[in-house]
């Protein structure tokens, strides 16, 4: 009987295990293996050598690009957090009826009905040298010359990231906020807390798990991105994703794999550090 129960348990776990093995573990294992292979200009060959990693860690470009990636992640995180928290707070606490909460929440998701490349590209005519932003500012007399840093700059890259990923911050924070017992807010008021004190001492601590989940979403998405950086910087900025994509277009798969492994480790370290800060288990 006990053996039987074990067997049933294994069988129940099997479908998910198969999917994870086939689509998660196997590809990662493959990348790790290929990262030790060697390459020439026209071919790659199986081997077990550390050349790719050695090259990667000895090149100053790697450090610049990793620094740049972390910089994008940090700045985007800060903006999405502030905007996402504000939007979630408005939805959760200022809107009283559930009907309006749902309606406005869906409104937030409407931009996601188009592909993110289109959402990204639509910034280009807006921010361009003779785009809407510049011509409006000139006609208002705010500036005399078109601003050069609006497009194809760190500014435009981060703007696009914030635009694309803020919702990933809104959703988990909103979820955390909806779980907060409203009588806690009243209790805080009863204890003499003003609006800001309630926000800082009650709402923010209770939203921590949501903030953390949103943070993980945004950081991993930004760190793994390459297309946004390419389009919005006009190929003038680089992050790790672009490094990998360049290697792939030059058929340097082993080198790309090595970079991918290092990136994966970096992201995992970042997440591990974040998880040490906040326990998200009770939120799941």
């Amino acid at each position: 009987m006990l053996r039987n129960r074990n067997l049933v348990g294994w069988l129940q776990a099997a479908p998910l295990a198969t999917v994870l093995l086939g689509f998660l573990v196997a590809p990662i294992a493959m990348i790790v293996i290929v990262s030790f292979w060697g390459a020439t200009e026209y071919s790659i060959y199986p081997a077990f050598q550390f050349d790719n990693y050695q090259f990667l860690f000895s090149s100053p470009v790697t450090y610049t690009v990793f620094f740049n990636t972390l910089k994008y992640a940090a700045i985007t995180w800060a903006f999405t957090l502030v905007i996402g928290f504000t939007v979630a707070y408005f939805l959760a606490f200022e809107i009283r009826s559930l009907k309006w909460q749902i309606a406005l929440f869906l409104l937030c998701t409407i931009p996601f009905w188009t592909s993110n490349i289109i959402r990204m590209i639509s910034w280009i005519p807006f921010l361009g040298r003779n785009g809407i932003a510049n011509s409006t500012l000139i006609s208002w007399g705010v500036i005399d010359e078109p601003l050069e840093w609006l497009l194809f700059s760190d500014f435009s890259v981060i703007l696009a990231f914030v635009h694309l990923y803020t919702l990933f911050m809104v959703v988990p924070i909103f979820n955390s906020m909806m779980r907060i017992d409203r009588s806690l807010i009243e209790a805080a008021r009863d204890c003499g807390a003003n609006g800001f004190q309630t926000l800082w001492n009650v709402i923010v601590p209770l939203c921590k798990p949501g903030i953390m989940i949103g943070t993980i979403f945004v950081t991993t998405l930004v760190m793994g991105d390459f297309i946004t950086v390419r389009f919005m910087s006009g190929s003038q900025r680089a992050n790790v994703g672009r490094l990998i994509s360049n290697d792939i277009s030059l058929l340097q798969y082993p080198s790309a794999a090595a970079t991918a492994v290092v990136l994966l480790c970096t992201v995992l370290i970042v997440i591990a550090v974040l998880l040490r800060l906040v326990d998200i288990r009770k939120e799941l």
Partner: protein
Amino acid sequence: MTNAADLEFVSLTKRYGNTVAVDAISHHFKAGTYACLLGPSGCGKSSTLRMIAGHEEVSDGAIVLSGRDISHLPPARRGTAMMFQSYALFPHLNVRDNVAFSLRMAGQDKATRLARADEMLDLVEMTQYAERKPDQLSGGQQQRVALARALITRPQVLLLDEPLSALDPFLRVRMRTELKRLQRDLGISFIHVTHGQDEALALADEIIVMNDARIEQAGPAREVFNAPRSAFVARFMGGHNVLHLPQGRIALRSDVMSVTAPEAGRIDGRVTGIEYQGTHVALISVVAGDEEVTALLPEREFFQNPRELGEVIGLGWDDRAAHPISA
């Protein structure tokens, strides 16, 4: 005549759109009383309490505490403190920090506020749990913490919103003894909202029965129970029969009813239910006009002369026990 710490309602009104939740009630609570607002759900008792606390806007009228109109002050400046129905303890703070919360909001330094918190925890006998989080406490322990948190601001009036409803029956009886003891020791007013008449009777110096947004009757517990002024109060307080007689309506306590042979009683009834309650037996009968009358007989008396379902009995009472009531 408003003395120190007396609480007074002056035609206090609460409207939500077109519905009136509290309809121009006036009442005077003497300082240091344990008062219970009693009534069925939706009678306006919770709205009244929340208006005193400042969590609900006063639509009309005023609330006066120690001679000053507090109707529009923020909750923390009223001299009241509230204990919430589900206790509303902050889940991310430990017991001591929960209790010290209002002092922290007021900007008191850490040493003072923790010392005060420990004092309060001592008062409710929770010192040993100071480091725990609320979800590691039982319902009764959470309630003590909520009490300590409410009392740390030294309120003149403590407001309790159905404080015992989240507890199991056994704990409920124990906690109500403690509430009463605490109120006596502190000498401040407690205003306790409940829908349980047994709770109100056990605790209250003064019971305010509310129905349909108004005060139906207010007075000392014994008076409200023994001399209900309306059929509603008689029925809601329980233990009463309401009888229509030619001379008008009367309320009769079911334990003063006597059961006799049909010809010897003042009215006849047909037994429809017999309920054994341990010390007593409740004999439920239907009398003319299809009204149910309960007679509560001492257990021994009933079993000396047991009755059967469907049997016709006579019901009698002493005129001194009958109270005329309004509709």
